[in-house]
């Protein structure tokens, strides 16, 4: 080997050893992050909306509800108590409630509750409209017609019942539960009685440990209940969805993953006929994954599972480097000379590495934090795999290949070579370009895109059905969408909420909104409290209405004076205390302060008209309409556009990069095959009825990365050399085996990715000869 090549090889070997050392040192310290949300951009992680989202998500995500039925519901008490005793043993649950009283939150209390301050709009109307005589008469009748009567305390604190009416707003609407004699919350579903069990997870249901522990605990704790006659258990909660997702992923990893591994092993043994070569082929990938993980850990402080999965897969592309090395040596057979082979491999492999790294690093520009890690991991991994092939292989594969090749394989290679020659050698390229243009234009009207995150997931129909049942049987449910109201302080916030409340009440009356909750229903703003106090003083005290009522009831003179006196003045309740106390009760709308402002969420109950609510928010500068699903969809659309732009940019960059070596037309010839393959892939997908999403575009980035490798080798090898054809053919098959099989995934997003890689890579392989020198 020439001295210059020898130097490169030694440098590569040193780098490889350094990568291995780094990996070994970092490996024990690897920390994995499996929060799936990290896949999506945290937008501005510190924005008020994201704080509200996080609070809401945490509350909703961790809740698990069970509805339990047996033929004799009254006999369920003991089995459920046993199940509860078993469930609390699991640290995965922070709360296991089977009795209604245990499901209750801390009651909401204000520091002082005075009827003069806390009036509902309906009470205000009544006070305004009725005369003193009518008011006292109506209050008298109210007290005298109540079957339970009233207490002296009630008379002294809420003689007109207005405070009770105000506090009724602190209670939820729409729930259809009742408490049975044994203290269980009971609900009827399709004429059958079910008991409600409510659990709260101790951590996110996206955590794999929590999922596993909780599902196991539930299975074993409910085993006895399931054996009871007529037993039926309905479940709902994010846990069951995340668990179903995990199970599906596991199944797919074991089927698709195993299938692709077996396929690749068989292929290697058939082509290279050497188990030791098979083992050696995985060494660069092993070093690559190790180095990639270490760099990501070192850079980000943790490794996201998405980076682990996708990053490892991309590093798997490094099998191409091995394949080229093997194919060169295999094809040269007895004539193999390390120095010559090494020289011929160096340029295309380096260029391939350079373009792949450039392509993958552009992933990070999509803004998906998960994909930034994928970019770093795959780039570092590819570099490590490259130095392993170029540093280690010359030491082990200096001698010619000992085994001959399969005649079938040779025949197949000749056939493909012949076919490609027939198609491409005489091809008038502008004509091909024209044909491609026509294809693109014909297909254009079929263009459709899909950025709906809900369609990308495919939860089991059974789970969705059960959730529907819960929704129907338990009554109104909060919508995912909400309004966020902002103000500089709590008093202004409550005043703004009161304005919003009025507008929302109008929408509800117009049947455009089922119901809603605003914080001012729990405490009016200081301004409103003052108005209430004034109204109360005027209509209840000064008018003599209260005095009349007490006289009608027969309250003695001193008693009357005491009561009237105590109901005459009241200090305004400061709204600041809400910030400290509101969080204890889950029914109170979310309230938080952030960056010098105070925010509160207005909870909405579906169904409602989004347009009307968007309109409402758009006319109020301090009110924002938040649609988490819509926002994710918008983001996906945004990233689809971004990724498409980046893909074009990546092509332009690679073309520029290659211009210095091949000239403008030569570089164009090299980038055209993957580009054409991508266009035709999109066309085929559209014809097949697919709607294009960001995941298809990510796949086309992979097609670029791998497809450029193909064309670079064809360009560098001056014609359709058999070793190149063998290497890129094998690369195509291994890529299809490792990525294309993802098309079988049950998760639409992954299936789309797999399908696009499958079609794109096969096309890139067949179109690759376009890159050869004319």
């Amino acid at each position, binding site marked *: 080997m020439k001295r210059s090549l020898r130097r490169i090889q030694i440098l590569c070997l040193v780098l490889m050893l350094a990568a291995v050392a780094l990996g070994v040192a970092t490996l024990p310290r690897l920390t994995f992050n499996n929060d799936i949300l990290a896949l999506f951009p945290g937008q501005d992680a510190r924005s008020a909306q994201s704080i509200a989202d996080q609070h809401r998500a945490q*509350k*909703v995500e961790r*809740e698990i*509800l069970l509805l339990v039925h047996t033929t004799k519901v009254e006999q369920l008490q003991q089995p459920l108590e046993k199940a509860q005793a078993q469930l609390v043993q699991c640290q995965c649950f922070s709360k296991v409630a089977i009795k*209604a*009283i245990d*499901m*209750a*939150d801390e*009651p*909401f209390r204000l520091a002082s509750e005075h009827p003069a301050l806390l009036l509902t709009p309906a009470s205000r109307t009544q006070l305004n409209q009725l005369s003193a005589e009518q008011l006292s008469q109506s209050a008298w*009748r109210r007290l*005298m*017609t*109540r*079957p*339970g*009567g*009233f*207490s*002296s*305390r*009630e*008379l002294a604190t809420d003689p007109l019942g207005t405070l*009770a009416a105000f506090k*009724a707003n*602190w*209670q*939820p*609407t*729409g*729930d259809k*539960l*009742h*408490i049975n*004699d*044994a*203290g269980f*919350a009971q609900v009827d579903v399709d004429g059958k009685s079910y008991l409600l069990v*409510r659990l709260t997870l101790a951590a996110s249901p996206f955590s794999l440990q929590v999922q596993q522990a909780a599902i196991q605990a539930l299975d074993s704790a409910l085993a006895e209940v399931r054996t009871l006659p007529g037993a039926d258990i309905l479940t709902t909660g994010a846990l069951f969805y995340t668990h179903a997702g995990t199970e599906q992923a596991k199944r797919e990893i074991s089927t698709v993953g195993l299938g692709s591994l077996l396929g690749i092993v068989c292929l290697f043994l058939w082509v290279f006929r050497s188990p030791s070569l098979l083992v050696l082929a995985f060494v660069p990938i092993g070093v690559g994954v190790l180095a990639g993980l270490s760099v990501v850990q070192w850079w980000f402080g943790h490794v996201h599972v998405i980076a682990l999965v996708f990053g490892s897969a991309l590093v798997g592309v490094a099998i191409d480097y091995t394949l080229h090395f093997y194919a060169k040596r295999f094809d040269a057979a007895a004539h193999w000379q390390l120095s010559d082979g090494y020289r011929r491999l160096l340029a295309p492999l380096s260029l391939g590495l350079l373009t792949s790294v450039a392509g993958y690093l552009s992933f990070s520009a999509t803004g998906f934090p998960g994909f930034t890690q994928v970019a770093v991991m795959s780039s570092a991994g590819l570099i490590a795999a490259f130095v392993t092939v170029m540093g280690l292989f010359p030491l082990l594969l200096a001698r010619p290949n000992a085994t001959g090749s399969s005649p079938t394989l040779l025949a197949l290679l000749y056939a493909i070579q012949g076919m490609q020659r027939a198609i491409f050698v005489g091809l008038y390229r502008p004509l091909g370009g024209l044909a491609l243009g026509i294809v693109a234009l014909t297909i254009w009207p079929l263009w459709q895109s899909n950025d709906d995150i809900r369609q990308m997931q495919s939860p089991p129909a059974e789970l969705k059905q059960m959730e529907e049942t819960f929704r129907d049987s*338990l009554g109104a*449910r*909060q919508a995912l969408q909400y309004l966020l109201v902002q103000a500089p302080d709590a008093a202004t916030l409550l005043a703004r909420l009161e304005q919003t409340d009025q507008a929302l009440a109008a929408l509800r009356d117009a049947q455009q909104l089922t119901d809603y909750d605003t914080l001012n229903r729990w405490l009016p703003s200081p301004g409103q409290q003052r108005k209430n106090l004034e109204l109360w003083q005027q209509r209840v005290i000064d008018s003599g209405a209260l005095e009349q009522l007490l006289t009608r*009831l*027969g*309250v*003695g003179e001193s*008693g009357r004076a005491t009561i009237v006196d105590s109901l005459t003045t009241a200090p305004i309740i400061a709204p600041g205390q809400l910030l400290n106390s509101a969080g204890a*009760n*889950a*029914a109170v709308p979310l309230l938080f302060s952030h960056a010098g402002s105070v925010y509160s969420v207005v909870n909405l109950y579906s169904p409602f008209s989004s347009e009307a609510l968007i309109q409402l928010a758009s006319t109020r500068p301090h009110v924002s309409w938040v649609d988490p699903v819509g926002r994710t969809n918008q983001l996906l659309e945004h990233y689809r556009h971004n990724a498409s732009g980046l893909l074009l940019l990546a092509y332009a960059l690679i073309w520029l990069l290659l211009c210095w070596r091949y000239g403008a037309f030569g570089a164009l010839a090299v980038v055209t095959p993957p580009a054409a393959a991508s266009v035709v892939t999109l066309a085929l997908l559209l014809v097949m009825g697919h709607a294009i999403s960001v995941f298809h575009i990510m796949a086309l980035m992979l097609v670029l990365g791998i497809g450029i490798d193909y064309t670079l080798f064809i360009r560098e090898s001056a014609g359709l050399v058999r070793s190149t054809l063998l290497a890129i053919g094998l690369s195509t098959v291994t890529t299809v085996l490792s990525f294309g099989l993802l098309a079988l995934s049950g998760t639409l997003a992954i299936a789309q990715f797999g399908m696009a890689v499958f079609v794109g890579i096969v096309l890139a392989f067949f179109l690759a000869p376009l890159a050869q020198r004319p």
Partner: protein
Amino acid sequence: MSKLPALLLLLATALTAAADSPARVDADSVVWRATLEADQQRLQQIAEQLSASLPVSGTMVQQKHMAILEQPLQSKGEFLLEENGDIDWSVTEPFPVLYQVRDDRILRTLDGEQLEISARTEPSVYGFFQIVSKLFELKLDGLHRFFTLQVPAEGLGEPWQLRLQPNNDRLASAIAAIVVSGQQGQMSRVTVREPNGDFSQIEFIYRSKKP
């Protein structure tokens, strides 16, 4: 769903509010003691007799004695308890109002207008009927959730008397005790005593049954 717990708490505390109805049983030279094993059979027997006599109907008179009032307040009306637990509670004086308890629903008819009452809108009314429906049939399981049962020192005779003492602080803050008396398979009087000494008393006068 997040509102569910609040509702549940409300349902549980509705009984507290119901107990806001004033009360004092003061035929109380009675000495009370905890129920013994020996009383269980008699309690069961009373409960069976109460159930067996259904349906029952008659008139009721409610009196509220409050320290703050110069005179006790009085209201009158009629009641009907069906075998399936449905209740008609019709107050005729001083104002006419009809309450109908049907399964878990409570309907109020006032001035010809019918309105469904929930634990959310009127916890005290809801809680009142929760207790009354359990008392009418002496549903011991239901009562045990909220009360400790006591019997006169000499035991449960005929006529019988029972004392229900709240077994949680929340309820005890509103109700000191409920004393129920009855005979011949019918509950004749319920007296609810408040901690501040106020009390209310409901007398039931049964209509003779048609054969």
